[in-house]
């Protein structure tokens, strides 16, 4: 029983990160019907920039005196950096191809993904970049179950970001414009919504969330690597599909489910095949229920 609860806690932590990445996929897909292959790279870039910022603060010496401010600042810097990266990536690689065939846009996205991950490799080196490890060492012990401070931080921060995003999308004018663009670009353009700006904004928000997930991943596992965006990227995509692609609430639930499945699969079935479970869910969902658990009916030609 203790083992089960421990795994549940680990699963929620991991699932929260997947949910944050999955949101980027689902929002971008909702607005321009494109799978942003480079999204996993935003996640990795966020992890890198967070590591760089934290190391810088530690080097300057702020880390010991103001750890909370440093951590907040690192999150802010990484999210801003990835938003900035994503807006440019969209302008360079996706926007000119919006009218072309889907295959062209997909290949361009794939090229961008390879380009970014190798760019990170060239600037940061092939080896793991270690996170400053002395942060949040403490933990609560409840008998056999332990919850580290870090897990509490990750889960609460994830919850804050998800609530914030929900408020943004469903309660503000910008969110309304985003939903309108997702439904019908031409119509929303007629009511004076600049679709290009909304698309850029969507990319920026999605990449910012992925960057936050990247720092959490780095803090949680202790290091980041240039190609770390690939596998979590596919898993997060599986989460987005599971929740119904284009659906924000669905992506959150899907992320949690994928995280749980991975942790429980690794714990109870086989640790070596832990990456396979997410793929099997992805394939199963696409085969049996391509609209996902929360999705509306998708037009046949889109799928």
């Amino acid at each position, binding site marked *: 029983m203790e083992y089960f609860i421990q795994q549940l806690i680990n699963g929620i932590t991991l699932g929260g990160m997947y949910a944050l990445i999955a949101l980027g996929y689902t929002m971008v897909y909702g607005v321009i019907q*494109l*799978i942003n292959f480079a999204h996993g790279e935003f996640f990795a870039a966020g992890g*890198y*920039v967070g590591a*760089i*910022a934290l*190391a*810088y*603060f*530690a*080097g*300057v*010496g702020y880390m010991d005196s103001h750890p909370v401010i440093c951590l907040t600042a690192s999150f802010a*810097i990484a999210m801003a*950096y990835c938003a*900035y*990266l994503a807006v*440019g990536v969209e302008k*360079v*690689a996706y926007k*000119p*191809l919006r*009218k*072309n*065939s*889907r*295959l*062209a*846009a*997909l*290949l*361009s996205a*794939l*090229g*961008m*993904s*390879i*380009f*970014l991950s*190798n*760019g*990170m*490799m*060239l*600037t940061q080196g092939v080896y793991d970049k270690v996170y400053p490890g002395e942060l949040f060492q403490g933990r609560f012990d409840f008998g056999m179950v332990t919850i580290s401070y870090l897990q509490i931080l990750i889960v609460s921060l994830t919850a804050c970001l998800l609530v914030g995003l929900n408020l943004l999308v469903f309660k503000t004018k910008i969110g309304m414009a985003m939903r309108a663009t997702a439904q019908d670009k031409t119509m929303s353009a007629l009511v004076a919504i600049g679709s290009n700006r909304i698309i850029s904004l969507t990319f920026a928000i999605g990449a910012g969330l992925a960057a936050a997930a990247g720092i959490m991943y780095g803090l949680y596992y202790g290091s980041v690597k240039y190609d770390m965006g690939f*596998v979590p990227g*596919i898993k997060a995509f*599986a989460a987005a599909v599971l929740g119904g692609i284009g659906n924000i609430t669905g992506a959150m639930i899907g992320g949690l489910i994928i995280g749980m499945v991975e942790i429980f699969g690794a714990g109870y079935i086989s640790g*070596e*095949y832990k*990456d*396979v479970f997410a*793929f099997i869910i*992805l*394939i199963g969902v*696409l*085969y049996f229920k*391509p609209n996902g658990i929360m999705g509306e009916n998708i037009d046949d*030609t889109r*799928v």
Partner: protein
Amino acid sequence: MIQEFKKVWKQYTIGMLWLLGLLWPMLGIHADGTLTFQKTVTVWSYLLAGTFVCLLIYLLNTSGYLKFVSNPLSRATGKMKSATSALPTWVWFALIFVAALFYPQFAGRYGTDVAINVLLYICLGLGLNVVVGLAGMLDLGYIAFYGVGAYSYAVLNSVYGLGFWVCLPFSALFACIAGCIVGYPTLRMRGDYLAIVTLGFGEIIRIILNNWMSLTNGPNGILGVKPIGIYWPIFENGFTFEHIWVKKLQFFYYFALGLAIVAAIAVKRLNFSRVGRAWESIREDETAAELMGVNTFIYKLLAYAMGAVFAGLAGAFFAARMKFVSPESFTFLESAMVLCMVVLGGMGSIPGIILGVAALIALPEVFRQFDSYRMLIFGATMIIMMLFRPSGLIPAKRVGTRSEEKEG
């Protein structure tokens, strides 16, 4: 005209400033708490110079200032074209064939090694071309079938001691079966979903190869795979056949050449058959193809299995040549590389793919000192090709407009 230039320059300046902003945090912030600018600016100025030259050439070319270069060039290519068409096509094929035949005599060991690589990738590229170029399905897990072919030969050879020529059909068969297993559930999907699901399947196959210790020896791979064995006629005291192992690279080159030629002929014959037309109709408009009575599911499965067969054959040759297989050789990046070759050369065009493979395998060998930039350049190539020339360097002859493009 001037207006357009102004717009281009503005975009260029914004883009380069954006790049500077991207580069600096990665290069200029150090862990010891110092901020530097010199390295960033150096890297950035190289990029600035390179892109500036490209932009300048592009602008001059579009506005017609480079006519004194491009006109003689186009005239020369026109003359060459008329000269080539004066002789029948088979003469050219024969010339290329003879050149390929005598190539190892001049190239030396290293050159032959590169050429073998090129030939194996041509087979892979042609197989992927059936899936992506003809049937229009983006397959990102293609390299898994290469792995299945290679492992089939390695396992059959090291465990059961079977020879290469017995295993070759089995490699193709197992790859085909793997293709059908992967294809059956996935091919009902279209476009992007298919891409990501094949990517997932490719990873699953790699993870299985990595973890099935009893069969594949896990991440350590299988060592000591036997090379190709042939019976060679010996004319000493009468006429006998002697069994020899093809260990010399020169010999192996000829087998790889044979494989590539068979693949090229097979893909060409497929392309201009009833099956090929069915594939192309699916690529252009799946719904319309179905209405015209094409059984889309069967044909898509056939394309998928066919691509897998070519990959399996190439895989068996790969295992025989390296004498060693490990899951490391069959990662997603390899899939992306083969895809990049197909995209660069031109989807659906056989000479294009041969050119693409040669460019992406041979050029990095020439520029060996820039090896770490290889994948970066591959990625950039894919984006640039999609932006400026989506049909590839040598476009396929028979390509219509897709229905999706018109819907916009």
